[in-house]
């Protein structure tokens, strides 16, 4: 039983380790530390939005949040604007980013619940709105984050990137909620069969609302961290996280059919995704070949993981 549960996340981690070893084989052991540091830094952003996406996907078929990139961009943009590079405003910026996240999450859920739109349509349509708001408020200016905040976002504690520490901490919190918490039980029950869950007394509407708020909140936080990390908000900063947030959930072993989450797998998959791209870079593939190979590797991993699970 224990090994059956651990199998899905093991795959993502094995794949990440294998790709890491291949990269080191090419570049030499001296690069290992640098590569690992970069993987932890960039992987953290994918892991945080991935954990959010995982919560929504766990709600069951049809549940997904496609507004993650737009929420990231809007939160990053508005937070930097509010701080305006002034020292000592980091908490203000964080507050703005989280509020933007909450607002977008509430708007997403309102569209889904009140207008009864399928989540895929509701969040896609809403993301156009959020992106427009970001464009409108940004107007091409690039505000730098406060120096102390930028130092924190790019800095390290005990040799580990600060953003990775935040990502691990969030992963632990969500893992606890799912494994030990009442809310986790409710989420997993809702994902397996919402009608049966409701008939068993699970407050399914509250669970759905909280999942959509959580993913937007995490996207807002990631936008804030990424903008601070990369020296300013850019309108395309969230772009790659649409595919990435879904890919890390699927590779990480969470069930697309809902009702089964896997937190450690998301982190493993996030590291794997970064390492694959950097390895293909190191081997000198051009952008087209890189994307094709990335896509094929994702498909391969998902097939392998699923075949394993079916046999179990």
């Amino acid at each position, binding site marked *: 039983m224990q090994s059956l549960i651990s199998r899905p996340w093991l795959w993502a981690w094995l794949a990440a380790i294998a790709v890491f070893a291949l990269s080191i084989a090419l570049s030499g052991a001296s690069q290992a530390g640098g590569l690992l540091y970069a993987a932890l830094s960039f992987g953290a952003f994918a892991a945080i939005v991935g954990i959010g996406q995982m919560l929504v996907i766990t709600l069951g078929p049809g549940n997904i949040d496609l507004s993650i990139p737009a929420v990231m961009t809007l939160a990053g943009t508005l937070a930097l604007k509010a701080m305006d590079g002034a020292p000592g405003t980091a908490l203000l910026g964080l507050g703005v980013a989280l509020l933007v996240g909450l607002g977008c999450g509430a708007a997403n859920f309102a569209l889904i619940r009140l207008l009864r739109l399928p989540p895929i349509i509701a969040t896609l349509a809403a993301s156009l709105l959020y992106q427009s708001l970001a464009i409108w408020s940004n107007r091409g200016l690039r505000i730098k984050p406060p120096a102390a905040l930028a130092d924190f976002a790019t800095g390290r504690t005990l040799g580990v990137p600060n953003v990775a520490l935040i990502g691990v901490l969030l992963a632990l919190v969500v893992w606890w909620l799912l494994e*030990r918490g009442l809310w986790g039980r409710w989420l997993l029950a809702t994902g397996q069969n919402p009608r049966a869950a409701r008939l068993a*007394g699970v407050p399914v509407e509250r669970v759905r609302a909280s999942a959509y708020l959580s993913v937007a909140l995490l996207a807002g936080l990631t936008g804030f961290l990424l903008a601070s990390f990369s020296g300013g908000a850019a309108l395309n900063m969230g772009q790659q996280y649409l595919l990435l947030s879904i890919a890390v959930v699927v590779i990480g072993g969470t069930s697309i059919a809902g009702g089964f989450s896997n937190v450690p797998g998301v982190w493993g998959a996030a590291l794997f995704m970064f390492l694959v791209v950097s390895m293909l870079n190191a081997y000198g593939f051009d952008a087209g070949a890189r994307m094709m190979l990335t896509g094929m590797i994702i498909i391969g991993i998902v097939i392998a993981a699923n075949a394993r699970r079916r046999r179990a």
Partner: protein
Amino acid sequence: MNTSQPVEAVVALRGVHKQFGAVRAIDGIDLTLAPGECVGLVGHNGAGKSTLVNLINGTLKPSRGEIDSHVTRGGRGSAIRSVFQELSLCPNLSAAENLRIAHPTLKGLGWRRRAGAEIRASLDQVFPGHGIDTDARVDTLSIAQRQMIEIAIGFAPRGGQARLVILDEPTSSLDAGIAEQLLAYVERFCAEGGTVVFISHMLGEIFRVASRIVVMQDGRVVAERASQDFDRDSLVDAMGHVAQHAPSADRRRDAEGASTAGAGASGETVIEDAAGLSARRGEIVGLAGLAGHGQAEALARLYFAGTSGWRAPRQPRMAFVAGDRGRDGVLPLWSILRNLSLSVLPAGARRGAVDRHAEATLGHDWQQRIGIRSDDLGNPITSLSGGNQQKVLFARALASSAPIVVMDDPMRGVDVGTKQEVYALIRAEADAGRTFLWYSTETEEVCQCDRVFVFRDGKISAELSGAEISEERILAASFEMQEN
């Protein structure tokens, strides 16, 4: 009967064993099924009946032993057909399209029309006057209608001929009238040389149709005799439970006598809805009538209106026991324990955390109380037989502190002995002040209630209480409006 004649067997099992991991589901069975006989197969939940069915129809291969057959067995062209208690139709397809799935040679232009004609012919034959729209999506039909379609597909020619039809709890969601049509058809089918294996917990039906009765216990055949050599008591004895003489009526009368002055009759009204359904504290209210006449919908409406999708109070107002396990009850990815404890969790939670120690204790208690057959509650719920899954759902609702328990035909697939235990449990809980709303397709169960609402065409056609509750009165009220 046919058993004594030297005819070639449709299927013969010799020394068959089947193991799933460490579990011995079938432990050495010899069984011969001859043309023209109807074999009644009985046994408790988890005795191995469903596994035996899957061995006979070729879905499973035996771990040891041989299975011989002179008809096509296994695969889609099989002359051996199985109809399961777990409904297996595709809900997004029509009856005709579902027939096509089991009939691979139906091809080319106009297949849908020919499939429709075939399923209608089969339905007309088994259930004359069924009134089912064979072009309607299956999920728009009632559970009884779905079961009827499944049975009709089992008996349909499908490019060949059904030689052996295995009916696993076919009548559990059918009302008495429809069930009687099926029994009559089974008799005709056997008289024409077909073979039927009939699995049921309703012993009356077994005696009615079976020429031979096979009793299973723990994966073995413990008794096998012509049906006239059994009576109800000896059959229940053979199944391994102490025979209990229908205590229902007496117990109700007693309870009534004792409680007329107490909570039962004079308790305050706790439920009253626009449709006219009402219940008092400590009362067991039955919902009766022909299957699919709005009872399940009325209960679901009541439950959804009385509870919220936003709040989960420590003491829920209502608990629900599902009859349609797959749709309304079981969470298939979870263990037995997690399925059982779901409704109780809010009451035991501390600062958002599940109290896992209390959860384990609760699971252990209820496993003892209601007899869930599993050595480890950490096993997946799907490892249990249908009747045992039903017990888990019962425990889920009864373990909660909800003052009102809503039960939507909850005894489907539960064996006789457990039923009696659950009846006693319900009566004890009601005497302690709990209110039960109980829809059942079995008149025997409805007759245990303090008050009965009979449904007809989605509306209440009669309200019976106390001594008025009888099979005749219920049947009369079920059909009343139809005669006009």
